[in-house]
């Protein structure tokens, strides 16, 4: 895929964290997992995302702790590189270029400097032929090294990476494929293979699904498709090998893991029950049920105190060895299908879509964190196949995020369709949506689409349904109920020649409503409910409708099923331009004039970004992915980029996320963005020469954010300037209490945050000055760190003096405030030193 532009498709935010087994660091403080193109590091105690290791340009397909240095981790990716990271500081130490797409990585203590990788067979990639190769990693000082020494250990191995495992002390490697178990001894260079019959008389399905090797005994545990677990022993004999069988799982065993001491075996499957088998005593087992989605991977920390399970609902559960759940790291929940559109909650800027059955999930893409689930259906969901249960199928937010409309439906397959239209209002007190109105029979047939009017004053909801009508709903005062409660009721029912409506859209200023009926677009005035005009360009049923924004608000864009993209000028009521393109999804950016169109042609999807006023695309990206795309959303950026490059300019204000059919959330990233990310990580490297403590994390992050604030790209004019301290406050509120510094330390920070800063003309020169001084500061600080505690004590006293001075001063100038912060920044490293020196 050669692209001339620097815009790439990346997985960033909301990626799968359950693709590969998570790793717990040796000190049990961090959980590492693959997540899209990066490796994420979470804290095991607070479940917070600490940072991610970014640098791969394709899906990361495996991670493994460096056996030689437990602070380092290897990661392999489909981009053909193996990278070695310092995962605590997030520094990329080395990159080894292998040159083939990699699919899994294994390391063993015995084989120092060698990693074992899954690569696709050279001959035919279609037949899923994979081979296991040992790669000797060359020792050289360079950052990027090409690893050339590949030696194949075995070809034709299973594409499932959990079907390969290292045995006791790395003496042998066991790998299974379909019905055959192979054990390769490195010293003897000999493979023993054992095969099972495909099925037996009792209908057992014997295919291997996973493998684990006992750490001290020569015993291999294998999981099978029918839920059996076999323990193989004596496997150096062709005939006298033996195995014992255990059976608890009723369906395929997804994962197996021995605890580091080898006393227990953990297994998990679709039942979402973690089973702990006592090794050597046959049937004794413990259960940890109701963990959520089916268990995909289990891993244990090296001291055996923590277990990690990753689940099919994109979740990692941290479990103590006493079988108690102590933490849940939730990624973006991905069900079988997303029925609602991708939406952005205007308040939290969170991505909203179907999550758990019957729920809407709110997912912060910026922090890459699952915020909460909103129970829409409010009924018990029964986990059983073939049941027809209520599902959220439509949802819409109004422009300010005060109202949420949802439609839930049951009986999609059968004839008797049941559906409810629910309206939720945002409750400031509980900071969540509260059910306001439930409309049981909003229409006589299924609701196809709905949208809120975008005007600031009155909120109006328009729904269209298969019964040929569109209805407008308004918030009105119901005479029967109390005055202070406003419920929604129907305001207007419209139809057009009994045609079936297909889509609806409000113009940006809510002065016009466009409803498409089959091949005809009708334009209504929401104030008078007068049919203003009709637009028609046969052939083809209208599929998508969208009004232009900002300077292009006079245009209306529509797509039809017959591969036609039309742009109407609403002033002249005439067709401005049209082009023949098969558009599967049309999405307009709320912050700019841009409209993105995904077009599916000849088995791959292309993206066109254009402005409605000119028929020439602003940006084209061929072959975005090989599937049809039906869901996409523009996510506003927290701070706009300032790309001058024409091809990436459209990404300045917001990011375009889209969802593929196998539920991958992808986005586009620009070169500048990546550069910035890389540079920020390198800067991080310089700063993070001190030990990482909770104090440090808090303060370090705080500082980072300040630095971001200080960057010249920040345009204060865009949004009302937030009070300086709000970062601190959020930091305070979002950090678990036990990692916070004492309140006395935080107090001054908190107080200063409440003070109104005066922004003046002087700001810019000051800021420049600031930056230069800050850089000096950093270098100074490094020296300080190496020197020891004495100075640190001094600086603390200094702080006290200064702090008291601050408190007296009623108002601070911007410069003074910065000064204060700078001082504060410097002096908390001593605490880290104190903690580190404590035995």
């Amino acid at each position, binding site marked *: 895929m050669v692209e001339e532009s620097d815009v790439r498709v990346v997985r960033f935010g909301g990626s799968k964290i359950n693709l590969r087994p998570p790793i717990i660091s040796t000190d049990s403080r961090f959980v590492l997992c693959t997540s899209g193109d990066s490796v994420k590091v979470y804290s095991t105690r607070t479940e917070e995302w600490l940072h991610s290791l970014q640098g791969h340009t394709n899906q990361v397909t495996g991670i493994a702790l460096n056996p030689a240095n437990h602070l380092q981790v290897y990661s392999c990716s489909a981009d053909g590189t193996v990278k070695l990271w310092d995962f605590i500081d997030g520094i990329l130490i080395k990159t080894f270029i292998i040159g083939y797409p990699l699919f899994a990585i294994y390391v063993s203590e015995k084989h120092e400097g060698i990693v074992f990788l899954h690569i696709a067979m050279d001959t035919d990639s279609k037949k899923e032929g994979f081979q296991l190769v040992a790669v000797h990693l060359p020792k050289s000082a360079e950052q990027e090294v090409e690893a050339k020494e590949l030696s194949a250990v075995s070809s034709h191995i299973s594409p499932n990476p959990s079907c390969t495992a290292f045995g*006791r002390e790395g003496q042998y490697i066991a790998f299974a494929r379909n019905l055959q178990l192979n054990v390769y001894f490195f010293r003897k260079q000999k493979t023993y293979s054992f095969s099972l019959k495909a099925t037996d008389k009792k209908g057992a399905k014997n295919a291997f699904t996973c493998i684990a090797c006992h750490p*001290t*005994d*020569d*015993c291999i545990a294998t999981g099978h498709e029918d839920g059996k677990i076999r323990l193989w*022993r*004596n*496997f*150096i*004999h062709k*005939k*006298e*090998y*033996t*195995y*014992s*069988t255990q059976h608890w799982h*009723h369906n395929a065993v997804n994962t197996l893991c021995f605890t580091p001491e080898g006393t227990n075996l953990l297994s998990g499957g679709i039942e979402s029950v973690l089973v702990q088998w006592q090794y*050597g*005593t*046959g*049937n*004794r087992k413990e259960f940890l049920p109701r963990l959520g989605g089916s268990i995909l991977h289990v891993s244990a920390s090296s001291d055996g105190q923590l277990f990690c399970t990753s689940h099919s609902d994109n979740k990692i559960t941290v479990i103590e060895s006493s079988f108690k759940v102590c933490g849940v790291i939730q990624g973006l929940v991905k069900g079988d299908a997303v029925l609602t559109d991708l939406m952005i909650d205007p308040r939290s800027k969170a991505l909203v879509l179907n999550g758990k059955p019957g729920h809407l999930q709110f997912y912060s893409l910026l922090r890459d964190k699952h915020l909460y689930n909103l129970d829409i259906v409010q009924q018990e969901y029964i986990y059983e196949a073939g049941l027809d249960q209520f599902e959220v199928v439509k949802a819409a937010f109004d422009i300010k995020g005060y109202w949420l409309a949802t439609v839930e439906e049951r009986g999609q397959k059968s004839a008797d369709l049941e559906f409810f239209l629910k309206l939720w209002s945002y409750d400031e007190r509980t900071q969540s949506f509260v059910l306001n109105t439930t409309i049981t029979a909003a229409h006589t047939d299924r609701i196809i689409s709905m949208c809120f009017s975008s005007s600031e004053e009155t909120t109006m909801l328009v729904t269209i349904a298969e019964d040929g009508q569109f209805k407008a709903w308004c918030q009105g005062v119901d005479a029967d109920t109390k005055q202070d409660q406003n419920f929604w009721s129907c305001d207007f029912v419209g139809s057009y020649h009994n045609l079936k409506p297909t889509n609806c859209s409000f113009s940006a200023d809510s002065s016009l409503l466009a409803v498409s009926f089959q091949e005809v677009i009708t334009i209504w005035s929401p104030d008078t409910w007068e049919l203003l005009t009709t637009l028609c360009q046969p052939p083809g049923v209208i599929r998508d409708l969208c009004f232009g924004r900002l300077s292009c608000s006079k245009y209306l864009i529509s797509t039809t099923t017959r591969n036609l993209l039309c742009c109407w000028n609403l002033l002249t009521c005439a067709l401005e331009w049209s082009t023949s393109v098969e558009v599967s999804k049309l999405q307009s950016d709320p912050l700019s004039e841009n409209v993105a169109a995904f077009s599916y042609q000849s088995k791959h999807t292309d993206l066109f970004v254009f402005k409605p006023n000119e028929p020439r695309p602003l940006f084209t990206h061929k072959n975005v992915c090989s599937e049809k795309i039906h869901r996409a959303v523009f996510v506003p950026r927290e701070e706009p980029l300032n790309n001058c490059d024409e091809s990436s300019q459209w990404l300045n204000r917001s990011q375009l996320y889209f969802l593929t059919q196998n539920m991958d959330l992808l986005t586009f990233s620009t070169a500048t963005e990546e550069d910035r990310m890389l540079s920020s990580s390198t800067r991080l490297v310089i700063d993070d020469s001190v030990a990482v403590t909770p104090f440090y994390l808090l303060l370090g992050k705080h500082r980072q954010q300040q630095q971001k604030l200080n960057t010249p790209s920040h345009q204060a004019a865009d949004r009302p300037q937030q009070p300086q301290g709000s970062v601190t406050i959020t930091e305070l509120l979002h950090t678990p209490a036990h990692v916070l510094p004492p309140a006395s330390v935080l107090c001054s920070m908190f107080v200063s945050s409440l003070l109104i800063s005066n922004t003046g003309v002087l700001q810019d020169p000051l800021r420049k000055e600031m930056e230069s001084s800050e850089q000096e500061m950093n270098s100074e600080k490094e020296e300080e760190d190496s020197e020891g505690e004495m100075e640190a004590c001094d600086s603390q006293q200094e702080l006290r003096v200064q702090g008291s001075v601050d408190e007296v001063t009623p108002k601070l100038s911007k410069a003074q405030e910065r000064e204060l912060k700078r001082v504060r920044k410097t002096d908390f490293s001593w605490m880290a030193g104190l903690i580190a020196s404590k035995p």
Partner: protein
Amino acid sequence: MGEFKVHRVRFFDYMPSGIRALAFNRDIERIAVARMDGSVEVFHCSDRFFQEKIIPGREQCGIEGLSWVGERLFSAGLNGGITEYDLTNQKVKYTVDAYGGPIWTIAGNQQGTHLAVGCEDGTVKLFEVNEDKIQFERNLDRQKSRIISLSWHPSGSKIAAGMMDMIQIFNVETGHSVHRLLADRGVGTSRSKECVVWSVVYLSDGTIISGDSVGMVKLWDDQTGTLIKSHNVTKCDVLALSVSQNEDSLVAGTSEGTVVQFQFISMVLGKDDKEWVRTRTFKNHTHDIRAVAEITTAVVSGGMDAQLVVRPLLDKVEVRSAASALRKIHFPHRRLVSCARKSGLMLFQYPGHLELWRLGESEGKGEDDIHLFVKRNPEKLLHLKVKGEDHIRCSAVSPCGEWIVYSTASSLRLYRLHCDNNNVSITKVLQISTELSANQLCFSSDSSHLFSASTQSSVHLVSLSQSGCKFVGTLKPKSGERTIGIRESSKIIPASEDGKWLASANSDHEVHIYNLQTRKAHCTVPVYSSAVTAMGIHPTTNCLFMMYADQQMCEYSIEQKQYTDWSRMVQRKGLHRFWMERDTPCLNVMFNPQHPSHVILHDTYMLCIIDQSLPLPDDKTQFYNQLTLKSLPEEQRKSHSHAFKVCKTFKDILCVELMSDQSLVVVERPLEDVASQLPAPIKQKKFAT
């Protein structure tokens, strides 16, 4: 192949008796099986588990344990006696009372000098094994509770005894207890119940392995008397244990019907510190497993569901073949049914009584060609209870239906049947005491003579007439080179149709042919390595057709005293793979007078007609070719057909007989019917129920 009218008989309510004990003798490769009804059977392990010997039981004689001492077989039971069996003549040799109340277990030491029995009164009694009898030697220290299980240390110096709640180790020299190992009771409600140590095994390295009613298999050290390891095998009882010859594998039978294997494996490959690890689980039984035995290449288990299961251990089998397949033995390898060919009567042999039935009749054609209307239902004519406590060893009804004969271990009784219209009556004609008791009985085809196979390969002749019966004489094999040495008793005796020839086979695999006119031995068929399971003399050619336990077949011309050309051809070309892989022996050989080239054979699962005029199949030809032949046009059938025509319509066949009116009687005993009459098994929780 021809068409037959078939009497499909399913009213023979034969119930095999549950298996109580197993004993394996490595030297002669025989396994002895004791059943609940007191009968003892001997199977030949290397001859496809052919049931060589059956010693019928007696009323009220339950066997609890079996033990081989050399080639002698001993049993002990709850009647308090120790019994030795005369295996050559298939009868009880003697019974010695141990005077210790009911005996729960018997064990012989490896040296073959002593027998130990565990009694209800808490004593372990040692018996010295003499050449002809056993002699009580002494008691070991008397314990408070009954002795359930015993095991000798291979050196013969110590005995481990399983009791209620504990295991005692005795020093045989002093007779004193060395250690007392306490077995834990179960938890919860079963805490108040005593823990019964059902089985113990004493290994040569001093490890004692016990199986108890709590469901644990425990490993103990006999030096310190401590528990080394315990494995929870089941929620119910572990009833039986057995260890392999080289002590690297142990099997435990549970009351859930599973056999659990333990293996002595080094945990780290290449090192010597080995541990007992639970490995495989075999589930072939539905009911309690009362006995297991690990033989050289297989695990044999038997229990309440009355089937003997031979589960091969593939890691010990050298070559995989039909002989090393999973084998389930449900029915005895001999006939329990005899038919009066001319009068349509059938005699069913039960352990304690005989039943005589008249076959039903049908009305020519039915609505479809498969099922015929029954005009007259089968009718039970007679229920003859056996006199005395012994069970029936064999029985027969004459072809004319006038005579019924049966034999127990002690006597032979001949009855005459009077049948006028619906009145059936019998009169006892003859009663012969012990020395003439028969192993097999047979009438001549004209019902004028009764042949009774007896001890020392001899056959007694009794002539039958309306006026009376007379013992005529005894046929003995040529006393040539084999005068010394005990001859096995005869087993299978078919007489030729014309009354001229008689053949008898014994369990030494010898087949003797006698001339009935001269009453002299005619010749002996060359001895084959496998046992004869069935034979028949062809009515016209006077060839003897023999089936062997390893599924080979031979045809021997009596007149020419040599194998026939067809038989030589069979030997030369070999039999088809599918034929050799069948796992039950052929139980009857019949000839169809209308097609002299046809031989009718049957085993438990199929009925076969061998057409000697057709070519033999080789391994490439389709063996079960009836359907293919049906689809072919008439002309091509000839070229595709081969000598073996197999009919698998009937299952679980006990007997097939060709009646004189060209109808076939097929006596079936469906295994489902047997299973439905068994007591309910232990209730087990099944997934999703």
